[in-house]
């Protein structure tokens, strides 16, 4: 079955034009989760989130409850919400911040209470001009409503929330780079260990970093209980998730689907979802979870949209974005563009990432533009191997953050799936697709 009867957890209000206003939010059950949470102990709220088995929606899929439990006890702690959303073809948080900003704010307040943090920051990529305005407006309304600030709803709990604009740098999505950026510095990822900001985070204080969608699930979880969330989906992949579908489908867009119960084929072909490949063409390949993920071909299309299921098949669900390429796509050009992205966005701290991405980009460019050489494929794979030895999945880590080891994914996928097309480019001196 393509679409289950699962409730809409984070997209329930999107049918309303005024979903971003406090009036609509309150009329549709808004801030009831926060009121309920404030009547519970912080520990009890965290226990519900743990019971929900909510996996982080930012890309790594780490359970939110476990992350919260790791927050080192300290008189000063912070919550930082990751709304950098810059992974190519990922556009779900865009929808949440623009269309339902109060849901995000309520989620942030629930987390702030459960974690008893000193202050919360919502970091949004600077290119979200409207999103920044919507979240700030929602926050202003929430302050006036008594939902944020001093003595929230008379509970005695106080917290301030600050909206912080980024300024255009993909790497700031990596959580330690985000913290550096929030401290007013260049977005250089921090050396690990410490592996988690929960030990040493913003200004050195213990910090929980969670994604916008992760936060947006919290009001529903508190109102309906962690068990109700965990009853949806299968195995470790519980609840629903936003999938951003892009590329050569008839109906690209963001779809909220119950985890595991839907397959990639359903997502691409179901009439209410992707509605099939455009112009009656065939599927050539798809990227299952952001451009850091290895590609899949038509024979993997029946895999379910589940974190472990996709991981076992050799890729990742990652940021929940699926890019569909039809049979007329030039895969060399596609892989080149992805490589160029990494080469531009590498922060430059680590040699394999900084130099490797540049080499790969130049070789890919010359193949695509008809100046490829016979040994270029070996050269590409060798350079990939230098960035991440073995070019395995999950990739071997050689650098400060995982951007570097993600670079080979698209090139090695494209070569292993479509070696012939690379050879045609090289032998015929250019792209047969024009």
């Amino acid at each position, binding site marked *: 079955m393509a679409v289950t009867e699962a409730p809409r957890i984070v997209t329930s209000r999107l049918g309303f034009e005024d979903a971003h206003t406090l009036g609509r939010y309150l009329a549709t059950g808004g801030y009831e989760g926060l009121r309920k949470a404030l009547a519970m102990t912080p520990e009890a709220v965290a226990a519900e989130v743990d019971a929900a088995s909510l996996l982080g929606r930012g890309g790594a899929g780490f359970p939110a409850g476990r992350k919260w439990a790791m927050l080192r006890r300290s008189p*000063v702690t912070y919550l930082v919400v990751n709304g950098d959303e810059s992974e190519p*073809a990922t556009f779900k948080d865009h929808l949440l911040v623009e269309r339902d900003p109060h849901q995000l704010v309520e989620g942030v307040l629930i987390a702030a209470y459960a974690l008893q943090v*000193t202050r919360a920051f919502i970091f949004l990529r600077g290119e*979200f*001009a409207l999103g920044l305005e919507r979240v700030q407006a929602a926050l202003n309304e929430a302050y006036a409503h008594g939902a944020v600030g001093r003595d929230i709803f008379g509970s005695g709990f106080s917290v301030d929330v600050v909206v912080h604009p980024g*300024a*255009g740098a993909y790497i700031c999505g990596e959580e330690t780079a985000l913290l550096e950026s929030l401290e*007013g510095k260049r977005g250089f990822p921090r050396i690990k260990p410490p592996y988690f900001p929960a030990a040493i985070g913003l200004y050195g204080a213990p910090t929980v970093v969670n994604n916008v969608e992760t936060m947006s699930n919290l009001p529903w979880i508190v109102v309906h209980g962690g068990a109700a969330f965990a009853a949806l989906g299968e195995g470790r992949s519980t609840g629903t998730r936003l999938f951003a579908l892009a590329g050569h489908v008839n109906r*690209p867009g963001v779809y909220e689907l119950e985890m595991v119960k839907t397959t990639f084929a359903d997502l691409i072909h179901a009439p209410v979802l992707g509605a099939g490949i455009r112009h009656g063409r065939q599927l050539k390949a798809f990227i299952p979870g952001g451009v850091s993920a290895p590609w899949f071909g038509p024979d993997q299309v029946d895999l379910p949209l589940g974190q472990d299921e996709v991981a076992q098949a050799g890729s990742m669900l990652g940021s929940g974005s699926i890019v569909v390429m039809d049979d007329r796509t030039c895969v060399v050009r596609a892989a080149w563009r992805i490589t160029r992205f990494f080469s531009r966005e590498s922060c430059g701290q680590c040699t394999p990432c900084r130099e490797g991405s540049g080499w790969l980009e130049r070789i890919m460019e010359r193949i695509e533009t008809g100046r490829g050489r016979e040994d270029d494929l070996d050269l590409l794979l060798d350079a990939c191997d230098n960035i991440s030895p073995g070019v395995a999945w999950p990739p071997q880590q050689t650098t400060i953050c995982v951007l570097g080891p993600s670079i080979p994914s698209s090139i090695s996928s494209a070569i292993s799936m479509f070696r012939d097309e690379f050879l045609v480019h090289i032998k015929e001196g250019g792209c047969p697709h024009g």
Partner: protein
Amino acid sequence: MSEPTPVAAPRRSSGAGPAPTHLTGDILHRARQLLALYPEPRSALVPLCHLAQEQDGWLTPEAMVDIAGLVGVTPGEVLGTATFYDMLHTEPVGRYVVSVCTNIACLLDGAVELLEHAEDSLGIGVGGTTADGTITLEEAECLADCDRAPCVQVNHRYVVARTSEAFDQLVADLRAGARDGEIPPHGTLVRVRRTAGIEADPAAVAEERRLSAEARAARDAASGPEGGA
């Protein structure tokens, strides 16, 4: 103009540098309010750069000197930080920065052709500004609007201009000022101001400062200076 009471508990005092001379009036007032939102003044660096761009359209050397003084770093550190970020322009740009995404989803939907059309019709290359100072053209990485590919933003606001014709119409509208209400001049990023949670209860601030100092002392005692990370 009175200084706002900080919400956060600054650990390092700002204003180490000379008094601002370039940022003025409402922009300076808002800059001081922003500073008060963060436990460390330096955290306001990027937001202040956005504000400076709101005043001048780009990040001028004079503004960087003021920002340095306000957040307590050197002007060189402001420059060094700002150049890391694509949205902070240390050279003048047009009234409208038009960004065309050519990343994967947009590439699959004709973005490269659209960008070529933009270059030809505007008579400038990527990074260039039209002679009348109206439009600066940029090639963008993914702008998180991939279901409406190819994606175009003007001053970081989404517009729909998926074909050559639609692009030409957009440019004509921008030149005619037809979209001024929706799209403010380059530099103005967030038009909604923070209206609450700016002035904090002094007792709460004192308490937060005390806790913060305690935490730092405990951490420094446990792991050496600055957390050892």
